[in-house]
């Protein structure tokens, strides 16, 4: 394998857009696979709870079309993971339908494998009862009730379900996988080619974000993977990978920089070396991998906790700004009298005071307040109507309540938006973000079909 396996990732997130000419130039130079991540929990549990997509359908179509052309006309396998944002079965099926539509438009015929990651709550409850679910980092375990309340449950698949779809006999053209551990599809392709797991997983960890590891960041990157090393080169000429940019990305969004825990083991990057091959390419060596004794998956589950309504407005009056906390406490008391939902705890009201501590809350070390502040009022209640009712009372109180020394008797709040009180739909929480032992369980099923012409 002196030439190495070449993997192209055009962008860190399907649908965010990528430089099309640089993509085709990279394809023309020759790649063995195209791999792109399509999901994340960064936006919180809402995509999992509601099935909302991460970007619009138009953005998916724009990004998918060249990828499918490359798969269909050049025979380059394409892997899309965590399809649609949350990687639910419904989102996988939705994306396969989209692939079918684009393939038909482009006159392509593609064999597509769907890999599903929805998890039956009965399995979760069974494993919970057997002590095979581990507490999350806060030390919490799910309860039977919280699992029952969960709208949707997925598990992050490791490489195992993907490897058989990527072997050299080329069983499929496109893989659309549900929720996956972010590095898993890149690792799976390498594992199917007999590459050392340490190299496969370390490369996957960096590649899943596209050229986030380059300077400047964004766009695509090609990994050339050898048995005992890999090299990274961004696809756009104005970008470069440097030893430090790649080393730094290894620890991106991970709780610790040295040992990276994944579904099938621990990646140890303490002894890695990062070497510049040329002005834009970095070679990574000496990654180590300790296989886990027990296979695990990370579960993700989302549950609705109510509906939210919000208002936002600005305060510029210094007489009010200097007593803003006392004023908002008075508003809260006033709204509690008007709205029993708030008084009895069925609804909650929170104020985010931008210009004071809106971004950091209790973590804010800066004691000052700006010459103007924005008030975001956030109300959560069991129904949208009840949330909006409390929100309206709170907004009216902030707008018109009097306060000591008031001179501006016409109103307290500069409101930029109408409607003044804005219903924004359901709010979710993660009821599951826990590691579950998966030894002996077959959690991820695969279906293969032909799409296009």
């Amino acid at each position, binding site marked *: 394998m002196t030439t190495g396996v070449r993997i192209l990732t055009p962008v860190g997130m399907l649908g965010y857009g990528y430089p099309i000419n640089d993509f085709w130039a990279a394809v023309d130079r020759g790649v063995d696979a195209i791999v792109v991540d399509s999901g994340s929990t960064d936006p*919180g*549990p809402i995509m999992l709870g509601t099935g909302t997509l991460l970007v619009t359908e138009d953005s998916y179509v724009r990004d998918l079309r060249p990828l499918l052309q490359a798969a269909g006309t050049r025979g380059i396998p394409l892997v899309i993971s965590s399809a649609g944002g949350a990687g639910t079965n419904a989102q996988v099926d939705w994306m396969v339908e989209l692939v079918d539509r684009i393939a038909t438009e482009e006159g392509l015929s593609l064999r597509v494998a769907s890999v599903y990651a929805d998890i039956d709550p009965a399995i979760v409850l069974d494993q919970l009862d057997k002590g095979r679910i581990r507490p999350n980092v806060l030390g919490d375990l799910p309860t039977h009730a919280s699992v029952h309340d969960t709208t949707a449950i997925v598990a992050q698949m490791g490489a195992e379900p993907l490897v058989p779809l990527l072997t050299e006999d080329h069983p499929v053209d496109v893989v659309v996988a549900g929720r996956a551990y972010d590095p898993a599809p890149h690792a799976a392709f390498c594992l199917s080619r007999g590459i050392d797991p340490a190299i496969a997983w370390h490369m996957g960890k960096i590649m899943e974000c596209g050229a986030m590891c380059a300077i400047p960041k964004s766009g695509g990157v090609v990994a050339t993977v050898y048995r005992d090393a890999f090299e990274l080169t961004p696809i756009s000429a104005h970008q470069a990978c440097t030893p430090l940019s790649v080393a730094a990305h290894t620890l991106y969004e991970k709780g610790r920089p040295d040992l990276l825990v994944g579904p099938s083991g621990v990646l140890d990057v303490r002894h890695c070396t990062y070497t510049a091959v040329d002005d834009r390419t970095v070679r990574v060596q000496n990654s180590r991998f300790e296989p886990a004794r027990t296979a695990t998956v990370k579960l993700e589950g989302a549950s609705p906790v109510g509906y939210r309504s919000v208002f936002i407005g600005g305060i510029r009056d210094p007489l009010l700004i200097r007593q803003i906390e006392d004023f908002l406490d008075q508003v809260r008391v006033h709204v509690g009298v008007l709205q029993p939902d708030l008084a009895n705890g069925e609804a909650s009201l929170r104020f985010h005071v931008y210009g004071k501590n809106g*971004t950091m809350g209790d973590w804010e070390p800066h004691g000052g307040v700006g010459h103007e502040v924005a008030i975001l009022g956030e109300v959560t209640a069991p129904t949208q109507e009840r949330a909006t009712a409390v929100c309206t009372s709170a907004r009216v109180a902030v707008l018109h309540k009097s306060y000591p020394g008031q001179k501006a008797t016409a109103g307290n709040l500069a409101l930029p938006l109408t409607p003044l009180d804005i219903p924004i739909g359901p709010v979710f929480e993660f009821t599951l973000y826990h590691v579950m032992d998966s030894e002996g369980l077959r959690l991820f099923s695969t279906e293969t079909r032909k799409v296009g012409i």
Partner: protein
Amino acid sequence: MGTIALGELADVVRSKNAGPYEITFDVLFNDYRTYAHVRDHGDLTEQVMASLFRIPLGDIVYCSFFEPAQSFKLTVLRRNSGQGGVGERDTFGCQQHAPLLGLPIPALSTGPDLATGG
């Protein structure tokens, strides 16, 4: 000896969620000598971080320098009602790093301790 803000010395100072219950902070240095200076002369301890972010010491999950990336990493628990949930302030956790920018570090000198470093 005077001091200089960490933000003046570091090339990257960032925060980011690491799953729904942790926020991780990375401070990266392009120059090894600057990295070594902050490591050896800065006071980037768990105690200082807890007080900087007004959090209990027990909420610090990781706090250490990491030589291969010429970096300092801090990871702390997120104890709000959960990422993207009620009362969320920063869904991606990407604007919690600012207090680190102003952390005072003894000024770089050209003294012998640095001349032999790195």
